[in-house]
Structures are given as C-alpha cells and as structure tokens.
C-alpha cells in the first residue's frame, strides 16, 4: 500500500522539475525523488560547429547565468588555442564574473527565497513571491532589485547587453572597459555594499538561529570548489579542493583538466539530470556539494576584509564544516559581499584599462578543459576539436547537476521531518520545495527552459486513485 505525493512542478526555481515523495503503509516517508523533466541536448548539437562560436552557443543554455557558460567556454577555447590571455582580459573576465555573482545571487535571495523567510513558510502562497515582498517590505525589495540591477548593468557595460553578451572569446575578450564604466562602478559600489551589509545583518538577526538553520535539513557530505594556490576563495581560476564535513582536506590543488579522475556521472531512469559524484567513493556515496556553501566550506579565507569577518563569524571557531542546506542562503549573501569587494580591487587595478585584450592563435591543441566557478558551483566545459577547430565532442558538467544527490537527500530529510501518517499541508510542501530552492538550482543549465508554473500536488494510492490533491495557481 505504498503511496506517492507529487509536487509538480516545483516553483520559484530556474526551470522545470517535480518532486515525488513515497510513503509507506504507515504513511511515513520512505524516499523522495527530485525529477528534472527537461531535456536539452546541447552537447550533441554543438558537434560540427566551430570553437569560436562555442561561447555564444553554450551561453544559450541559460538566460540566468549565460555569463558562466560564456566564460567557461572561452577558457576552454584558450586551452585549445594554447594561449595565456593578456592580463587585462583576465581582469575583465573576473569583473564580469563578479558582476554575475552579484546579480545571480541577488536574484536567488531577494526574488526567489526571501519571500519564504520574510513572509513566512506558511503564508498565503498567492503573496509568497517577490510582489508580496514588495508589499511587505518595499525598502528591502527595492534594495534587492537595485543590487541585482547593478550586477546586470556591469555585464551590459562590458558585453554590450545584459543577457548572452558575445564578449568573451577564445584568447580573451573583444572589447575593453571605458573610463566611464569604471566611474559608474565606483559611483555605485558603495550603495551595493551597503545593501549587502544591511541584508546580511537583517538575515543574521532574524533568521540565523538553530531552529531556522536546521529546518531545511542538515547532513554531512563532501564539498568542492576552486581555491587559489594559498587556499583563498576563488571564482575564476585556481585548482580544485574537496573537504569533508570535519574540515579535512580530501583533495587539494587538483588540476581541473584531469577532472574525470575525480568526478564521474551516474544516471537514473527517473530524471534527465545526471548524478555527478566523487569517483573514488563511488555512487551514491561520493555525494558532494558545490555552490556558495561548497566554496565557502573549502576556502581558507575570502581574502577581502568584510567578507573575511563574515567568514570568521560563520565558522564560529570550529574546524567542522556546515552541512545545513539553509546555510546556502547565508553563504550566498557572504559571496555577494566578497564579489563586491573583489570588484572594487579590480577597477582600481590600472592594468584593467589596457587595450591589449586578446591573444590571437590557431588550433594548437585538439582537446581542452575550461573550468571556473559559476554562481551555483563549479562549471566544467570540455571539448575535442579537429585540426580545423570544428567541435567533435563536448562534455559539460554543470553546477546544479553536482548538487543533485544532495538535493535529493535534502528533500527526503525535510519530508521525513514533517510528513507523518500521510498528512501534509501546503506549508510543508513549501518547506520541501525550499530545500531545493536553497541550492538555487538552474535546471536549464543542468540538463543543458525557464519558467515558473503553478504547482500541483497529488497524493496517490497504489491503484492510482487520487487520495488528496493540492493545487497552487
């Protein structure tokens, strides 16, 4: 007499997915599955195109984080051209990635997740969105919208447009930064920093306590992210570090070009999203997490004063690493702060204004890996080309996919915590969705479509009879 609860589709995430919760005879939660129901096929249809088109082609994987794919693709191109890009190009790419972190993290926090925290998990679903947030706390909503806009405007100034800028290219970038752009960033940075500080303070005073931090599940796992040579938080270059929940370093300074040795992918029939895992531990034991919590857990420091002060408070003097899913929100805000501080450094570096921004070269390697940190986690692009630069093979391991095992674990734990005797209500389902939302999954990317749809949940008996139904418009 097994029963299923389905949340279909999951709302306030980037893409289409559903959740099925499997109940046993007693109405207790047996298992839970997060199904990604989109199929894209980018890896296949990139074959036969040229290396130089790949940044803009793969950018179309996503309208939320196109910059991440553009940069990873351009870096793969650098590897295949076998060039070291000019310093100005590196600084400019770093600036765009920092802007991407600000806009993407602000979108996740203010638009998608803050309504749960500020309006309440059990509040009226019709109001539990960014519009409701504007009604309840117009000042915070305005600040959040302006913060995201700041990131978007930097991307537009650098790349010519906010979404899908065809700007980073194999060998560098194709336009430089003007003095006016630098002045714009300088003029608007203080407000962005202030918004982030105020939001972090509000977040810590209102939402960071043992009850809230534990509510979206808490479990041990490995964490992965890039760090610089001295272990500092890194978002553009660096090598892979993996730590466990006790803070022990499992893998350090691992060359990302050899990623298949540590990251492998498994598939399940019930989801189009693959299951990357840490290869030496196998599947599914090799569960690891990436993204804000992953990066913050692997790094020794942010390397900028405000963010480092936050990190010290977050770590609270322990070596152990947080396994709380709720802390994705916390670390996301910390990363906005770090990105803004990095931005400040970048625009004060005179080298960023150099007109030498692109290394020209032909095809010098037939295979290349490009890796960097996207807002949602480590992003891998790996191409093979023929001697003329025509793409023969593509493998993309995207950030969201790497959190797939952890997202499934999270919803199972939340469901087990709240659903008993087969009983649930809308607020419980929202908490389960919240366990997914905290990861800020981007399903457009993960299955290499975007939308927000009404939610339907059904509790089904074994003969397919609908025992209960909840519909959210």
């Amino acid at each position, binding site marked *: 007499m097994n029963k299923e609860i389905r949340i279909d589709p999951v709302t306030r995430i980037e893409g289409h997915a559903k959740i099925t919760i499997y109940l046993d005879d007693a109405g207790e939660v047996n298992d839970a599955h997060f199904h990604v129901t989109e199929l894209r096929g980018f890896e296949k249809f990139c074959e*036969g195109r040229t290396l*130089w088109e790949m940044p*803009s082609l793969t950018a179309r994987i996503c309208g939320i984080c196109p910059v991440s794919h553009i940069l990873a693709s351009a870096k793969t191109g650098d590897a295949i051209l076998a060039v070291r890009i000019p310093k100005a190009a590196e600084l400019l790419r770093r600036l765009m990635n920092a802007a991407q972190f600000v806009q993407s993290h602000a979108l996740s926090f203010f638009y998608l997740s803050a309504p749960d925290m500020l309006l309440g998990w059990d509040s009226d679903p019709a109001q539990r969105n960014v519009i409701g947030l504007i009604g309840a706390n117009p000042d915070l909503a305005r600040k959040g919208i302006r913060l995201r806009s700041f990131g978007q405007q930097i991307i537009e100034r650098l790349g010519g447009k906010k979404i899908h800028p*065809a700007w980073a*290219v*194999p060998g560098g970038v*194709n336009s430089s930064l003007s003095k006016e752009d630098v002045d714009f960033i300088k003029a608007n940075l203080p407000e962005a920093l202030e918004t982030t500080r105020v939001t972090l303070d509000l977040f810590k005073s209102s939402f960071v306590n043992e009850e809230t931090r534990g509510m979206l599940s808490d479990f041990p796992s490995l964490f992965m992210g890039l760090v610089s040579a001295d272990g500092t938080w890194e978002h553009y270059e660096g090598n892979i570090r993996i730590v466990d929940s006790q803070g022990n370093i499992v893998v350090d300074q691992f060359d990302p070009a050899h990623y298949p040795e540590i990251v492998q992918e498994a598939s399940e029939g019930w989801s189009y999203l693959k299951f990357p895992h840490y290869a030496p531990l196998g599947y599914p034991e090799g569960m690891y997490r990436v993204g804000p919590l992953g990066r913050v857990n692997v790094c020794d420091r942010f390397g900028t004063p405000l963010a480092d002060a936050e990190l010290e408070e977050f770590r609270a003097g322990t070596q152990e690493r947080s396994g709380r899913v709720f802390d994705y929100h916390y670390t996301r805000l910390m990363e906005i702060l770090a990105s803004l501080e990095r931005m400040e450094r970048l625009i004060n570096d005179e080298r960023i204004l150099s007109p030498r921004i692109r290394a020209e070269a*032909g095809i010098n390697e037939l295979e290349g890996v490009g890796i960097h940190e996207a807002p949602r986690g480590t992003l891998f692009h790996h191409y093979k080309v*023929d001697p*003329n630069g025509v793409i023969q093979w593509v493998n993309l391991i995207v950030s969201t996919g790497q959190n797939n095992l952890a997202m499934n674990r999270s919803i199972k734990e939340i469901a087990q915590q709240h659903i008993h005797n087969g009983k649930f209500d809308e607020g419980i389902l929202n908490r389960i969705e919240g366990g997914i939302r905290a990861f800020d999954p981007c399903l457009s990317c993960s299955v290499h479509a975007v939308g927000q749809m009404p939610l339907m949940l059904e509790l089904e008996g074994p003969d397919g009879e609908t025992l209960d139904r909840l519909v959210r418009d």
Partner: protein
Amino acid sequence: MKEILIRIDGKEVAAPAGSTILEVAQQQGIPIPTLCHLDGLSDIGGCRMCIVDVDGKIVTSCTTKIAAGMEVITNNDRLAELRRLNLELIFAERNHVCSMCVSNNHCELQDLACDLGMQNVEVPYAYPRLSLDATHPKFIIDHNRCILCGRCVRVCAEIEGAHVWGIAGRGSEARVITELGVDWGDAEKCTDCGKCVEVCPTGAIVEKGKATAEMVKHPELVTTLKERREND
C-alpha cells in the same frame, strides 16, 4: 548613346538603351531591394528580391533591360508580399540562426528581413543537416548560412579570375563547391584573396577565428576595384 523613354512609378524617365530597370531606378533614387546583385559583378536574377511589375508581368529588374514605352511599378502590395514570401523561403531553406552567427548585426539577409518587415517565417523550415568546411587555413564556408546567391562564384571568376567556386546539384540539393567538390583547403587554384568572403552577403563564407557578431564585410571594395580597373 541612344536614349529611350520609360515610365517608372508613373514618372517618365529617359535612360540609355541597354540599361537594366534596376540601374535606371537606382539612378532615379527609387529603392528596389536586392540580394544577389552587387555593383561590379554580372547579374543572374537569382534571389528574386528585385522583382518589379512591367506591364502587369513580374520580372527581375536586375536582368531586364528597358524598352521604349515600358511601364514599370517598383512597389505595390503584391510586390511586397511576393518579396516577403520569397525571403521567407530563403530563410526556411537553410539554418539561419542569427543569435549564434558570426555575421549577426552585419548581414545583408538580416537587414533585408528588417527592411521588408518579415515578422516571422510562415512556411515550414526545412532544417537540412548541413556541414561546414573549415579546411582552408584562413576561411570557413558554412552551408547552413548559404543562400546560393552565387556572388562568390561570380567574384572568383569575374574579378579574381581563379574560378574556384561553382555550384553543384539542383534545387534544394544545390551547394556552392570549391573546385570540383574538393575540400576548400585542398583547392589548388584558390589564391586566398578573400574576395568571396567580402562579397558573401551572410555568415556563410567568413574569416576563421571570428566569434559571434564579429564578422564585418566590405563588399563595396569589389565594386571599387571593378570601377578602378575600368577607368585605367
């Protein structure tokens, strides 16, 4: 030279015998859309964009010579509809994806779609599975973006004199080819002059190493070259 009188959009015009309707219209400042035509190359009337109404009959203005008493209409609802349908057929025949294209924002086909008010393509797309040839060290031919205007064929034969480009196959199977169908990189007669790149109106023949929207062409160079040669 003998001049003859025609009426074009109701206006009586005198022009030298042997002129085409397109030439007369251009001299009079009357706009007629073109695509396969390029000043300096011979005309083939291939793209059918420059169609006009002559005494009730639809003809291509680039290849039709004027005749005494001819009544020409260069633009009316029927012509606009026919040109737009024709353009939609060109788009539907191959895989034109502007957002990825190296010639985005610098493309004669794209400009024409804007000028003629093509909002969408109502005929079904053919989505042919086509390849690109990147074997030439400097250039790429991408058949997905070729509209078979034949400018590459004409410039290579008439201006460069190399006769590398040709067209093989018929109808929807037609393809531009280098020499007798060898890879471009193996075409021995190719002088690497790049004139075919400059005259190609779309992102079909392009320089290697250009990323999306980076390819800017200068077909007017060929026009100037031809004029200078004639004036020497």
